[in-house]
């Protein structure tokens, strides 16, 4: 059971969110075909598109939920569930692949398992493989919480990961 204050806070949060969705929608209202830009704005703010927000957006924009879900599930950038605290994106583009990105990915997964085994919070960090982040010249490349690292070897990978997760 939630206490009344907790409930009030939650409702405030919901109301605040609703307002923000309306603001974002209005900001783009004069622009035709703004759905993707709006979803980007929501992603930036919340890290995902909660169902309630999609609903609010649907009403605000007059765009059917069906369309919003079609779009969210089509584009890799949008998601329906919250992100974990940290994300590592391992580039699996051609250049990185040829230069051993596979091994990096395995290493990271191993490291994270190890961390969880030794008490770190489950799911603190999610791993995604992405296709080319535009640093092919510096393959293999990874992005850890918006910070790009190029020419990463296994050893450096371990170090970077440790430092960032410890932060």
């Amino acid at each position, binding site marked *: 059971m939630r206490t009344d204050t907790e409930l009030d806070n939650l409702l405030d949060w919901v109301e605040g969110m609703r307002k923000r969705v309306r603001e974002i929608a209005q900001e783009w209202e004069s622009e035709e075909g703004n759905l993707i830009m709006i979803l980007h704005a929501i992603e930036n703010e919340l890290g995902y598109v909660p169902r309630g927000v*999609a*609903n609010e957006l649907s009403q605000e924009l007059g765009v*059917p*939920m*069906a369309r919003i879900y*079609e779009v969210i599930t*089509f584009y890799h950038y949008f998601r329906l569930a919250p992100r974990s605290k940290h994300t590592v994106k391992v580039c699996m583009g051609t250049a990185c692949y040829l230069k051993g990105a596979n091994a990096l990915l395995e290493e990271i997964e191993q490291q994270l398992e190890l961390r969880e085994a030794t008490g770190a919070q489950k799911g603190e960090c999610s791993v995604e493989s992405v296709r080319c982040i535009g640093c092919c010249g510096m393959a293999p490349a990874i992005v850890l919480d918006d910070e790009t690292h190029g020419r990463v070897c296994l050893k450096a990978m371990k170090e970077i990961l440790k430092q960032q997760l410890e932060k």
Partner: protein
Amino acid sequence: MIAQETMVTAKINGITVRVPEGTSILAAAYQSGIRIPTLCKHPDLMPTAACGLCIVKVAGEGKMPRACATDLRDGMDIITHDSELTRVRRTILELILSTHPSDCLTCGRNGNCELQTLMGEFGCRDDRLEKHIRDIPPDRSSHSIVIDFAKCINCARCVQTCQEVQNVWALSMLNRSIDTRMAPAGDIALADSPCIKCGQCAAHCPTGAIVENDQITDVWEALGNPDNYCTVQVAPSVRVALGEEFGYPPGTNLTRKIYAVLRRLGFKAVFDTNFSADLTIMEEASEFVERFAHGKGALPLITSCCPAWTDYMEKKHQDLIDNFSTAKSPQQMLGVVAKTYYSEKMGIDPAKHVQVSIMPCTAKKYELERTNEMFASGYQDVDITLTTRELARMIKQSGLLFSEMPEEEADSVLGEYTGAGTIFGTTGGVMEAALRTGYYFVTGENLPEDAIEITPVRGMEGVREAEIDVKGTAIRVAIAHGMANVDKVLEKVRDARESGQEPPYHFIEVMACRGGCIGGGGQPYGVNPNILRLRMEGLYQDDRDSALRCSHENPSIQKIYEDFLGEPLGEKSEQLLHTRYQARKQYLR
């Protein structure tokens, strides 16, 4: 003035063809006697270009265009069939099969499935690809239709139908690549979605991925129970479509054979929904006269006999609830008088009276329990609805040879109908029937013989507007069919209301399905504009063949008011024949 059509001349398999500009290669080939295989293109819909089966070769072009989505251009030299094309088409079918369960024997489409037919034709004999089948359980949340996701081939016909033709947006395509799948909007149960149960998705699906909720077994069981007194009603549009399942040309009127076959199936009494259509008109026309002539109630009056439409309105146009006719649909009116008046008269215990309806429609399955008013008899007024397609299957199961059925009459008093009742089954029909009787109510006389057919309200245009002269008073009417078309009409009503102007129309007829019930979601598969036209013609012919063509002239109707109901909009009529509407949420989740 008709604009001069520009013609294009081209060659298909060496034969010169001349067709109007804008004709697809597919259509042009068909006209010259060549069928190009298709799976995603439905004659009723814009091409989705999803399957690739219809590719053809064009001399001098490297790429092979899709015949369904490419217009024939002047001078094209096209090959539609050769060994290479056949090989490519067979590979496509093999690919589709690799993601499709081979469950034909237990499938709702066994025997009339487009995929199955093509597989048969192309003779894909070896299963050289490993299967990859969607592991999502079927959605049985809706009373009207069942979605079997595993069988979906992603042709997107249903999505296009639901979004563009119906503007409901209950279905969508989610995800991408091999994970692309059709799902109810927002990936929830269909029953929680904005679905209005029209069944148009099922009618357009080439496979067994969306089918009506099959209730034949329930009917067999009801018939088999000796305690039951089973009666049945058959809707206007069923009579001109059922024959297609038994080899009759579309539009053949088989009313009397249907009565006979229903009796042989075991129904104790056979009623005709056309009778209650006449009853609906009595109530609805009276309502109209009240509102139009006596200023009691909102104008325009909007018809409400299509449950998919009422659902749509309750979800999307709630501000117009007051404009709705409160008269129940013919199905429900028949149900309630069968279980009250008829039961009483025949001394049947209404608790044992099972009323089955044969409808062109999947939404009617939902209407049975729509609100409390559907139980006005004290029992569920109509118990089970079968669609035309289900009836056809049931007849086949029964072993009855439909073509050998004699011609019989329906049971009195709920079986007699006029030409006005029968045209309910087509777009514009309710309006025409209501105007015939409304004219009589206002002027006290029938429309003259040569004006009884109100042609301005007829046709297949998505929205039709007309002005009908009632002895000097103009009645402005609009007719919309295909759910997406209604929004335009309602927008005009709303605009006028907001700017304080007189409503643009006095009376609006809306049918969710294209063509009205003749194009219903439960009708035999494979409709195209031509089949719709033939079914429509069948109903208009039935009207022309009727001795009586106005609902108020129906002697059985006069009798039921005399014996039982009193008068239109009277106390008993209100109690049994009318309903209420309420605002509903589009999403229950």
